[in-house]
């Protein structure tokens, strides 16, 4: 514990004060002289051919400086891979969802821009739309993309072990269908971009991005500008959660409008635009068949998924692959078969959202495990302990577990939840009449990748400049989108240099200055960027060490950097202030600069989107969540007064930041489980505002949230750290759904758990009991 001077301490976030005081500058707070305001015209149809666009009237409107349409971008399309580039900055030929971007205007103010939108005349030939992924797969369904027959955006089919034989060996088999709904990211800062084009070919853009280097490449390709001329500066970000990874129309349009007008252009979406037509989580239909032995040992999973991809592919291949990878964890599954279709529909595009594909599959698998335990009369905790993976385990598909504290997380979660006191099996409770408020407890486990290992550039780089007064600047392309990485990475620098958190400054990402970085997704920053920062800090330290050795007349290996001092082990009288060392080093000889540099990338091969074979990451986190629910048996309303998170995160670099992540996971998970969904009609979102959409408020979250960190010191991550930001949201849903069953004896297999659904399920319980007895002995 005391091994570290800075790490492992509960240090408040460095960006806390400015955000709390309201002085942090977000994209919309910025303006440039002569700046124009941009607005985007969106499709009023879910599916239509664009016959003609007439922008003349809009162009002639006083105050309008430019109007752009799809053709202005030529044939440029973007997407994760060459074969999945199916998105245009502005629609070309066709619109594929209601709210898709069709044209954009730059004008002297927002009002004029809005007026101009009304003057753009678009003639559409309305096509029949398909908004249900199962219908989209049927023959004769409306086709979204000419080059993607059958509306199939991604197809993955794979198998490991002998699944058929395993089912023959199984004592008990269950097959269930689960549905996870459309959920929005819920960031409170709408997507925004301020762009400045300088002739002949220089772009500067301030944009709200959690992974800015996607857009940096996008813009280089789209505008045929060398990367050296794309300067993407990252202001503070008001949340991302996966919805601010790539480039979006707002970014491309801001740049194009600036190019056309020669003036800076800012576009800030409204919350209505974000909620109705920006990206969202993949809705998924999961059909899962599981075979077990009498004692609950899992023998096989056979899983079929239909994911609603919306009108584009986005990062869909990673979502589909993730769902497969984490069918294999956190429980031992010796045989596994998987087939997934990611289907195009006339709906906004589904992308990654905190957990990217893993929530949906673990909701199904962990609730089904609970169903199996219930059917076989097994204890829910024991069935998880029995199936839990362990250090040294290798999944049937080839994922290697180098550190695993899953068992400990189960033990700790159960203890903190006072499980022994509160848990009584439903079979026992069933005999008693239901009171007005029924209570129940539920448990579920999770695992997550500690840094998604994707193809292409996948390493992180850090540059540390040590100033002569002993402070340091850390240049990293890893963006702090609110998760607190700025603080944690600065702590690593302070730890290695023996300084304090306040001595390290982390400027925000600026693609001209900071090293290229994959981005803040897939829970990679602490462990991957953390290692790069560690190496860079050690590099800086090694440049200071010879000078220190000379000044202190000591062997370099005896020198310690701690609390702004340079000490000699075993000689307490020989001390130097760190700032004196840096000053002397900088002035050494004819002078030098202390610049440490480090790069680190995972050594495992990239994720295999075709077969799912091998690792998804170099390290995996594990965890257990326990939920306590209260169900009003008259109204069907479910509340979660208490929730426990026990997470094997390897090492807690900053326990306070970890708690924040755990609480955020609970908030996101409770929202996904109980409160959030997009109500739609023919592809139109009826709830595109924060009043109607219903993100949970503080009153709707557990009054008591217990956050427990299990430290297993992983061999891969920085200082043994693994992720603790996304995995913790993976098991929130099944823990709550399992607790609901424990309270009232019904299984909710269709999210969200609305009160109306609960009430109906309660009434249908007898019928449902019959239906769920469908498993064959």
């Amino acid at each position: 514990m005391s091994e570290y001077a800075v790490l492992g301490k509960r240090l408040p976030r460095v960006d806390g004060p400015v955000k709390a005081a309201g002085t942090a500058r977000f994209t919309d707070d910025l303006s440039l002289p002569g700046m124009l305001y941009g607005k985007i015209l969106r499709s009023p149809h879910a599916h239509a051919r664009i016959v003609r666009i007439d922008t003349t009237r809009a162009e002639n409107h006083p105050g309008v400086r430019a109007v752009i349409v799809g053709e202005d971008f030529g044939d440029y399309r973007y997407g994760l891979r060459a074969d999945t580039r199916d998105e245009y900055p502005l629609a070309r030929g066709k619109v594929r969802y209601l709210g898709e971007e069709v044209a954009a205007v730059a004008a002297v103010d927002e009002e004029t821009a809005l007026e101009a939108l009304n003057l753009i005349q678009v003639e559409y030939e309305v096509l029949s739309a398909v908004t249900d992924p199962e219908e989209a797969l049927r023959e004769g369904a409306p086709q979204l993309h000419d080059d993607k027959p059958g509306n199939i955006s991604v197809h993955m089919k794979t198998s490991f072990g002998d699944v058929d034989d395993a089912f023959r060996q199984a004592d008990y088999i269950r097959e269930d269908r689960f549905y996870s709904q459309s959920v929005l990211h819920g960031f409170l800062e709408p997507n925004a971009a301020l762009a400045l084009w300088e002739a002949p070919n220089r772009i500067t853009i301030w944009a709200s991005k959690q992974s800015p280097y996607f857009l940096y490449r996008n813009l280089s390709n789209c505008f045929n500008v060398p990367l050296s001329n794309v300067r993407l500066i990252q202001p503070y970000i008001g949340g991302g959660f996966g919805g601010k990874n790539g480039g979006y129309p707002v970014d491309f349009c801001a740049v194009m409008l600036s190019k056309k007008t020669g003036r800076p252009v800012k576009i800030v979406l409204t919350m209505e635009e974000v909620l109705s037509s920006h990206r969202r989580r993949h809705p998924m239909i999961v059909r899962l068949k599981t075979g077990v032995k009498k004692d609950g040992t899992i023998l096989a999973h056979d899983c079929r998924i239909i994911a609603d991809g919306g009108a584009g592919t986005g990062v869909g291949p990673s979502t589909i692959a993730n769902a497969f990878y984490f069918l294999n964890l956190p429980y031992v599954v010796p045989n596994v078969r998987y087939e997934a279709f990611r289907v195009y529909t006339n709906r906004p595009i589904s992308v990654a959202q905190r957990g990217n594909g893993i929530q949906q599959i673990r909701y199904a698998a962990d609730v089904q495990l609970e169903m199996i335990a219930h059917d076989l009369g097994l204890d829910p905790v024991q069935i998880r302990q029995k199936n839990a993976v362990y250090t040294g385990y290798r999944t049937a598909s080839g994922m290697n577990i180098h550190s695993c504290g899953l068992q400990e997380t189960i033990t700790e979660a159960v203890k903190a939840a006072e499980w022994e006191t509160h848990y009584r099996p439903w079979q026992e409770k069933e005999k008693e009449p239901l009171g007005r408020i029924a209570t129940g407890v539920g448990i579920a486990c999770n695992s997550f990748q500690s840094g998604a290992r994707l193809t292409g550039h996948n390493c992180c780089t850090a540059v540390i400049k040590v100033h002569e007064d002993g402070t340091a600047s850390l240049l990293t392309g890893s963006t702090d989108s609110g998760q607190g990485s700025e603080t944690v990475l600065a702590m690593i620098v302070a730890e290695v240099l023996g300084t304090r958190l306040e001595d390290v400054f982390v400027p925000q990402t600026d693609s001209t200055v900071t090293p290229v970085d994959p981005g803040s997704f897939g829970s990679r920053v602490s462990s991957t960027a953390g290692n790069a920062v560690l190496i860079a800090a050690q590099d800086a330290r090694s440049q200071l060490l010879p000078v220190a050795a000379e000044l202190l007349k000591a062997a370099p290996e005896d020198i310690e950097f701690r609390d702004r001092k340079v000490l000699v082990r075993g000689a307490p009288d020989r001390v130097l202030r760190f700032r004196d060392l840096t000053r002397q080093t900088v002035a050494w000889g004819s002078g030098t600069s202390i610049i440490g540099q480090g790069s680190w990338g995972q050594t495992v091969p990239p994720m295999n989107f075709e077969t799912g074979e091998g690792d998804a990451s170099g390290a995996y986190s594990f965890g257990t969540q326990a939920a306590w629910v209260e169900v009003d048996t008259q109204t069907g309303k479910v509340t979660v007064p208490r929730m426990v998170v026990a997470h094997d995160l390897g090492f807690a670099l900053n326990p306070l930041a970890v708690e924040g992540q755990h609480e955020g996971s609970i908030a996101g998970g409770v929202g996904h489980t109980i409160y959030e969904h997009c109500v739609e009609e023919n592809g139109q979102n009826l709830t595109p505002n924060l009043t109607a959409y219903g993100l949970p408020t503080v009153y709707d979250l557990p009054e008591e949230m217990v956050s427990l960190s299990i430290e297993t010191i992983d061999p891969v991550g920085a200082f043994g750290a693994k992720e603790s930001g996304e995995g913790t949201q993976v098991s929130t849903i099944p823990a709550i759904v399992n607790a609901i069953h424990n309270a009232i004896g019904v299984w909710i297999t269709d999210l969200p758990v609305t009160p109306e659904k609960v009430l109906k399920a309660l009434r249908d319980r007898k019928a449902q009991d019959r239906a769920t007895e469908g498993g064959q002995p």
Partner: protein
Amino acid sequence: MRLKKFEHFEPRTLSEACQLLNEHGSKASVIAGGTDLVVRMKYGVTTPECLINLKKVDGLSAISSVGENLHLGALATLTQVRCSELVQERYPILAEAALAVGAAQLQNMGTIGGNICLEPRCWYFQQGNSWRQARPNCFKNGGAVCYMAKGSKRCYALYCGDTAAALLALGAKVRLVSLGGERTVPVEEFFVDDGMRHTNLRPGELLAEVILPGPGTGQRGTYLKYRKRGALDFPIVGVAAVINKGATAASRLRIAVTGVGSSPSLVVPPADFPAGTGLTHEMIDRMAEIARKQVKPVSHMEVSPGYRKELVGVLVRDALEKLAGA
């Protein structure tokens, strides 16, 4: 985004306000706290050419005893209402209802008059311009269709005010003023079950005051609000119940429901409903069933009509159980 241009008047007296209202007629909107109107203006579904701001009308936010009644100026904020000692002592149910509105910030801005006059709500109405362009306008936006009840001849937007239910159960009255004079009407006669025009306010008329009758002694009441989340949301169903001790059977129990139709409504106890004895469980169950049967929800906003109906029964039972146990 800035709002469309409008003229802004700040009358100092009620008669000046009525004068302006008379002059500008339907081109004018009256604004008090603005928590409902400004949102509609931002959406572009209400586009007044001028606003008559009541904020500076003298004495319009007073809460005072007049004889044995309590008078609440229309401009009293919901925070003022719920914090008023007179309200808390004599009509705690009204304080309860005011506290149930939105959130603290909205209660600080929103007024009792505005909350009573709250525009009926609907997913197809309160939406931005580009959203509305994707389908023909509904009644409320000048069209000829109600998306809540396809084929219907009327608008089924939901009235979602919280305080109106409490006022209805309390038997409150509202004083309406116009250039031609004034009239005082019971709250139940003020509302109309029509999403297009949910009050009886005549052109040129302003709601000036709420009058709570009697000293409030021997009275018990409660307002229960069922909403999706613990804050911010409008009621999916709100139920106010008031029991008057020693009164006649008809006025002994007053139950009002909000969030179910285009206006708040009273649930009338049957003529044979017993007076003079405490509420028994049987009576409560019977009343809950009467309430459940009496309401005819149509809107499927948030929940299905059937579930909304169920909730009315549950909330009436809960409210009466609470009063019986108090």
